[in-house]
């Protein structure tokens, strides 16, 4: 049996066994769960080979599985996050109900993501895509709140995406007579002009849903915030990247062959940028950390879409690099929220304050990830942002880059809100009992933040596989042109050398930290946050002085016009209208036999009247 099949079989079998292992013991279940993920990852990482190809023969369809360099790159993200979030999940799920349900769907969605990545034909792609959709759907409704609203919204949007993809798939089959992606690519030139537009648009709709692109994003805030955080780490970190993965393929192989190439690229890029801007504003408004991060995820995916859609080599590098980075830091942040929620019981930024001294390791992970998210040098996020801006500027997208820059700057606001809300501010008595999260949860977060740090000075670790992935789709080699070791260049030859920057920043930081910290360490005394200058007043223990309400109110007031209209509301109103309409059709069946008889007569009469037109 081939290695891909083995991995898939282990996944499916592991999922089933884990689901029912609860009957034996909870620990056995944990071990099985971790074992499945570890086994598959180890098999995968030990046997990476882009040449293998497995064909499953069905009578009328051949399912072809195999790895490409691009899918290999995304498989890194999936497996890496799956292992780390898996360990984290074991910690987070301690003592929770429906563990088997969670583990089952978790493993299944990882398997599905792996399946998507190894699919070389569209049917198996779609099969795994749908498995991913429903397994993630089952996890979105895991905690049972708002299932009818959140879950259905997620599923309907996913279905819209998946079905438009399915439509594209069957059209492709009818045109090329094959489901293979390679046949689509080679046969695309021969299609009629309408089909050449229709197919990419349908495919992009499908991928756009998972990538939470602008009009199709409305599921994301609810779904991300409702799933258990250990899964949202995967959901936002890896699952959304499947949409990006599909988009990358579409843009690299199909859109390039179109006469309207630039138009489609610009439309999608603008959609991505507007998504980023608007969702950033909404993220600023949120008071629940989960929703904040959910909106932030949408925004970050917007940047990635911009990069992928623009599609110059540098933009592609930027998009794919950001995809990796987003997987790393956003899943860390979701894990942080999960850890805090586990320890305090709430994820509301207004309620929890001053955990920095209670949960220092979590804070470090959060701080590093937030800095990476904000794109501030010297961490990994900066590299991606830099490449994105440079690619936009060098490819003449000036207003786009301004918009992206706006959302990127506005992102500082929610970054600060997140850190301040949870960790800084007044230390309240209410949370004095809070302890650091267990090691099994903290260590994955720290490992992920370490990756953010490392990628800030050694981006070549990731740029190399991206480069080979892009070369596979016959983009020019970017090594030496756009990056070289830890240097990154733009088209005009301007460069940033990352390692010296990191050293410089580190040296200056250490100098002043030493100056401030070690010099004052002896003489300086820690005082509680109650001991602050409050016009001489002595705050009581129960008095909460933290600034929480209307955190960015002036800013939100300034950007109010942009936030007046909400896609979500329109969509819900539309859905409501549809349901009312269906209620009307329901009344066709009024339960009266005589009416039905009349229907029958009318039916006959209509047919007779139309018979001349119908039967020629």
């Amino acid at each position, binding site marked *: 049996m081939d290695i891909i099949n083995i991995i898939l079989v282990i996944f499916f079998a592991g999922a089933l066994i884990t689901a029912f292992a609860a009957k034996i013991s909870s620990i056995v279940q944990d071990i099985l769960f971790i074992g499945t993920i570890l086994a598959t990852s180890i098999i995968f990482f030990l046997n990476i080979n882009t040449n293998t190809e497995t064909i499953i023969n069905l009578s009328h369809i051949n399912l072809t599985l195999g790895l490409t360099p691009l899918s290999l790159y995304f498989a890194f993200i999936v497996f890496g996050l799956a292992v780390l979030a898996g360990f984290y999940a074991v910690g987070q799920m301690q003592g929770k109900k429906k563990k088997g349900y969670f583990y089952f769907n978790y493993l299944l969605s990882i398997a599905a993501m792996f399946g998507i990545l190894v699919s070389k034909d569209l049917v198996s792609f779609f099969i795994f895509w749908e498995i991913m959709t429903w397994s993630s759907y089952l996890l979105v409704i895991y905690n049972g709140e708002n299932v009818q609203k959140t879950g259905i919204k997620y599923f309907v949007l996913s279905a819209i995406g998946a079905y438009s993809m399915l439509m594209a798939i069957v059209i492709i089959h009818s045109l090329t007579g094959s489901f293979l992606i390679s046949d689509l690519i080679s046969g695309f030139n021969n299609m009629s002009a309408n089909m050449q537009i229709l197919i990419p648009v349908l495919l992009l709709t499908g991928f756009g849903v998972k990538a939470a692109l602008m009009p199709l994003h409305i599921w994301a805030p609810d779904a991300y915030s409702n799933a258990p955080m250990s899964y949202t780490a995967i959901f936002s970190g890896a699952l959304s990247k499947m949409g990006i993965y599909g988009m990358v393929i579409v843009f690299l192989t199909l859109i390039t062959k179109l006469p309207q190439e630039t138009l489609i690229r610009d439309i999608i890029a603008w959609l991505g940028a507007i998504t980023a801007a608007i969702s950033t504003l909404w993220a600023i408004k949120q008071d629940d950390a989960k929703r904040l991060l959910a909106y932030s995820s949408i925004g970050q995916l917007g940047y990635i879409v911009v990069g992928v859609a623009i599609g110059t080599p540098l933009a592609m590098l930027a998009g794919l690099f950001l995809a990796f980075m987003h997987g790393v830091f956003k899943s860390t942040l979701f894990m942080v929220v999960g850890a805090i929620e586990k320890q305090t019981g709430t994820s509301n930024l207004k309620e929890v304050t001053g955990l920095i001294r209670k949960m220092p390791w979590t804070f470090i992970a959060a701080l590093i990830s937030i800095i990476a998210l904000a794109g501030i040098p010297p961490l990994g996020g900066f590299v991606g942002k830099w490449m994105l801006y440079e690619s936009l500027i060098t490819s003449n997208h000036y207003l786009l880059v301004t918009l992206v820059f706006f959302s990127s700057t506005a992102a500082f606001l929610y970054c600060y809100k997140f850190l301040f809300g949870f960790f800084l501010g007044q230390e309240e008595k209410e949370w004095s009992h809070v302890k650091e999260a267990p090691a099994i949860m903290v260590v994955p977060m720290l490992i992920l933040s370490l990756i953010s740090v490392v990628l800030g000075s050694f981006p070549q670790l990731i740029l190399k596989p991206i480069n080979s992935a892009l070369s596979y789709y016959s983009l020019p080699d970017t090594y030496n042109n756009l990056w070289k070791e830890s240097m990154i260049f733009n088209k005009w030859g301007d460069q940033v050398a990352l390692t010296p920057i990191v050293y410089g920043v580190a040296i200056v930081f250490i100098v002043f930290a030493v100056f401030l910290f070690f010099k004052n360490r002896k003489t300086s*005394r820690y*005082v509680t946050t109650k001991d602050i*200058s409050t016009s*001489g007043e*002595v705050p009581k223990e129960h008095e909460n002085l933290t600034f929480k309400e209307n955190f960015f109110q002036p800013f939100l007031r300034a950007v109010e016009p942009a936030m007046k209209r909400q896609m979500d509301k329109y969509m819900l109103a539309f859905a409501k209208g549809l349901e009312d309409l269906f209620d009307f059709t329901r009344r066709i069946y009024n339960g009266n036999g005589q009416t039905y008889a009349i229907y029958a007569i009318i039916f006959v009469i209509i047919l007779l009247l139309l018979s001349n037109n119908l039967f020629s």
Partner: protein
Amino acid sequence: MYNDKNKQKIVDIIKNAARKHSLWVLAYGTGCGAIEVPATMTSRYDAERLGVRGAATPRQADVLLITGYLTVKTLKRVIRVYEQMQDPKYVIGFGSCTINGGMYFDSYNTINQLDLYLPVDVYISGCMPRPEAVLEGFGKLQELIGKGIANGAQQYKENLDFYRENQKKVIKNWDFQDYNW
């Protein structure tokens, strides 16, 4: 410590020179004296030319300016503010009320003698002292600082028990943190 008058090292001389020309004032506008402070600071008398400048919070301030009578209630706040200030720090008692209670000497809730509760470096007498007097007072404080003998904070630290005893006598709801720096 810093303000020991007998052992002024060269470093201390330089530091004191800087300190005396950079007095950041936290004006605690308790009584009617608060009205004189703006006059002192603004264009006519312009205390800033002497390096005297307002500070926003006690953490940043050097001088605590107590402008007028203190009630029991405000005394508590004043002590709190004083203890939040960082060394070196000075107190200026402003107006007669801080010296002997002034016209409120027989009120049931005013403090007659600020000295008992906080170490005052310089008193400015008058009811109210005019801006000229205030500037004179700042000048006096600068002189003391230059000589290294404006060491009220030192006194406060050494005689903390005495001050605490007096403070607790009038302040019934005592909920301060320890003062140990």
